């Protein structure tokens, strides 16, 4: 059988800067999702003749944050270009965007984002305005007319373009999820909002023709669309031609839209109504200083400052609320590994921020009980579950439920003997094999949940040594 052709996937992600209160070039509210159609418009974003765009400085700052978080180099002087095409959702007949050809300079370029240890290169990042939205009665091909809603027109979009460094649909989805959480941690966009993050993809097999798939509305659809397109190209091997295809969400297939020869000529040229965006070194430094820490660098800091294992540091850093909770606890107590481990396995963001949130001081006391063997980790977990369910302090739960570890070594030793008797030969196995040792400890804990695993292990080890002699 022939080896499967190598797949190369590049993505074009459009992310609305939903944290901006206004649109990119006017003062209209950018919060349009609960509005009536054409309610959030003004003469500027409606494209009325005589109006002029004025750049929202905050949008530049937010876009620069994304660029820096993706390790891009930010252009000291970038330009807005007009992308000209007729479409009813485009009130001016052109979209104000940026461009990397015809003398254009995008806001930032040459970055990367690491996904599962592999760098995905970011080609460029640019600022542009979102078009309006068309709605149809029924389906696009059946509807007798379309309705236009310009509420979305002029919303600030950041376009993030990658090199074709992704190799499968799963990887693409992982990339997008990581990108979304990174952008969310910067506080510039809420990627969960409907349509706030959208994506186009280009796919080629074994250096074959590049096919673009547009209209992928959510990240959930990305994996489906890519898998479909890869399968389609494999099945019709050699038949893929340079073209643009449309993802039909309802039927879960891609449909040919136009071939490369029919590609529109957008007649890009510099937008004369907007001066260049100037972001000197000092301005970029300012943005960098004002940036919240993103997950990757936070994880590195957790490992460095608190000695957490890389895995635990990453898991903790991925959750913004838990990270903040952990750092508060770390000011009260130095049992970092235990505090981090327990919160990653037992607590959600809601548990540390919601109405029945666990107080850091209470949590630290609980951890201290585990560390001093007063209670077992399993008991601590039980107390936390109860505490977050009821809103009572965890320490109180420990008291009222009478949670305490069995510290009586004689009692534990008796359980060890009982388990050994029930499974002949299991002691010998535990002596030979590490896995069997752990299994044995597990059996003891099953019999006596209040026992401390560490004590069980110590007693079992000495029991095995005694047996040898």
């Amino acid at each position: 059988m022939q080896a499967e052709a190598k797949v190369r996937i590049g993505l074009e992600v459009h992310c609305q800067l939903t944290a901006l209160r206004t649109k990119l070039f006017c003062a209209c509210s950018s919060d349009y999702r609960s509005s009536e159609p054409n309610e959030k418009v003004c003469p500027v974003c409606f494209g009325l003749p005589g109006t002029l765009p004025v750049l929202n400085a905050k949008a530049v700052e937010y876009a620069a944050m994304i660029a820096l978080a993706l390790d891009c180099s930010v252009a000291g002087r970038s330009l807005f270009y007009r992308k000209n095409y007729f479409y009813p959702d485009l009130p001016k007949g052109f979209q104000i965007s940026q461009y990397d050809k015809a003398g254009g300079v995008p806001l930032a370029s040459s970055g990367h984002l690491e996904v599962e240890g592999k760098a995905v290169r970011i080609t460029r990042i640019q600022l542009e305005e979102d078009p309006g939205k068309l709605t149809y009665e029924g389906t696009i091909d059946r509807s007798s007319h379309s309705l236009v809603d310009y509420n979305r027109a002029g919303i600030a979009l950041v376009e993030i373009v990658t090199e074709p460094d992704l190799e499968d649909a799963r990887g693409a989805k992982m990339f997008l999820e990581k990108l979304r959480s990174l952008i969310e941690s910067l506080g510039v966009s809420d990627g969960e909002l409907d349509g706030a993050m959208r994506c186009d993809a280009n796919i080629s097999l074994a250096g074959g023709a590049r096919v673009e798939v547009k209209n992928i509305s959510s990240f959930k659809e990305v994996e489906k669309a890519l898998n479909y397109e890869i399968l389609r190209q494999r099945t019709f091997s050699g038949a893929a031609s340079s073209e643009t295809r449309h993802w039909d969400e309802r039927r879960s297939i891609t449909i040919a839209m136009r071939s490369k020869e029919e590609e529109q000529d957008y007649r890009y040229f510099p937008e004369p109504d907007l001066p260049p965006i100037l972001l000197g070194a000092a301005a970029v430094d300012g943005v960098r200083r004002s940036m919240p820490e993103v997950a990757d660098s936070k994880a590195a800091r957790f490992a460095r400052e608190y000695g957490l294992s890389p895995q635990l540091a990453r898991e903790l850093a991925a959750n913004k609320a838990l990270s903040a909770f952990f750092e508060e606890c770390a000011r009260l107590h130095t049992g970092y590994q235990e505090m981090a481990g327990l919160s990653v396995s037992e607590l959600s963001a809601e548990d540390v921020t919601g109405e029945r949130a666990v107080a850091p001081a209470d949590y630290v006391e609980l951890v201290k009980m585990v560390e001093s063997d007063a209670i077992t980790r399993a008991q601590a977990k039980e107390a936390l579950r109860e505490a977050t369910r009821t809103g009572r302090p965890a320490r109180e739960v420990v008291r009222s439920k009478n949670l305490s570890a069995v510290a009586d070594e004689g009692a534990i030793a008796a359980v060890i003997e009982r388990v050994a008797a029930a499974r002949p030969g299991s002691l010998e196995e535990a002596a030979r094999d590490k896995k069997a040792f752990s299994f044995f400890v597990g059996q003891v804990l099953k019999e006596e949940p209040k026992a401390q695993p560490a004590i069980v292990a110590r007693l079992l080890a000495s029991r095995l040594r005694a047996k040898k002699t």
Partner: protein
Amino acid sequence: MDPLSVKARQVPSLVAGGSLSAEEYVASILERVERLDGRIHAYLQVDREGALARARDVDKRARRGERVGRLAGLGVAVKDNVCVASLQATCASRVLEGFFPPYTATAVERVQREDGIVIGKTNMDEFGMGNSTLNSGYGPTLNPWDASRVPGGSSGGSAAAVAAGMASVAIGSDTGGSIRCPASFCSVVGLKPTYGRVSRYGLIAYANSLEQIGPMGGDPEAVSALFYAMAGHDPRDATTSREPPRGRGGAGLEGLRVGRVREFFGEGADPRVRERVLDGCSRLEGMGAHVEDVSLGSLPHSLAVYYIIAMAEASSNLSRYDGVRYGLPSEKGTADWNSAYARTRSAGFGEEVKRRILMGTFVLSAGYYEAYYVRAQKVREIISREFSLAFKGFDLLVGPTMPVLPPRVGDEPTPLEEYLIDINTVAANLAGLPAASVPCGYEGNLPVGMQLIAPRFREDVLLDAAVALVGEGGAPRPAEAP
């Protein structure tokens, strides 16, 4: 009363002092409009009631001794591509029929704040594309000096209105000479400010990187007052300068270094025009200026560069006229949106506009962009640099505004012939420089204008020179519009 019995420059102080009623003055202007405009057709729309109401308000405040603005009582004609809330703005195009902007251009807002009174909206070449005001979707404007001649364009309605005493001053816009050309043909002063000096907010775009709103009028002091009222930074126009406008020295022309630009007197220039402008140069010398010849070798390229850039920008600016949201409604039918757009645009745009959209689309197309648009921008740079260099040795550069006398209405030049007479005016737009046309003589009863170009933000020099050249009496009036 006869509005012409008062010099425009005196109106504000007379109104403020209570010795002239703004209402009476404005009513007399409206009376002239009623009497003369049926023939000249300078206005597309007259806001009779609005103008009188504002005038009464100014009078009321003057009577109470409250402060009135520096333009108090002046009747201002506004070109139809400059938005005034609640007045229709068509740019003399059928495609914008029925468009009433909900906002007022910053420049007009500032004029109104100084109690200037908008008389109405004036005719123009459709979207500013032309130099005759024949290319109007609503019929041509005629030259008050000779009704068989064009008034120039594209701000022909504004120029004709002030020349015929149907406004005290006027607001025009200049993309490649659209203020200076009609100022020259109608014998008034017209100033195109430095790019970025006057806000373009509310100016319906033809070619954004070239155009400016500017003042026009027979009395250069009133033109000056109108300019300073409109000038200054506007947060709604990102291309306006933050540098405050430079006030006039009010000095004479003693010691002014004037460069007579050889290329402006080149072949194609009517010898009669050349003579009158050379006379004008002698008068400058007579007032103490040093006049010398100078050559700017890149100027002959300016026309081609101008038309490429202007048409490119226009093709994009005019994309929004699709009949979906405002203006000429698209016909109801079952057609797809593409053909609906085509129908609206075919019906709404005039021939010249269609020609420029097509050519602009062509020069921006893949494969031609580098050869036309990019090269044009490079030459534009060279022209700018050459001006900067020339201004090291001169305070003013001069020449004929238009190389010809006002053409006859029935002449019907080819498009190229029509483009060619913009040869002297377009360079100032390419370089973003302030430039004025000042009346400097007559051939029979046909006016000749002299163009003055100054360094960036030196409108003060242009206005001082205009005042000196025109003199106390203001520009002469045409006999045909008594």
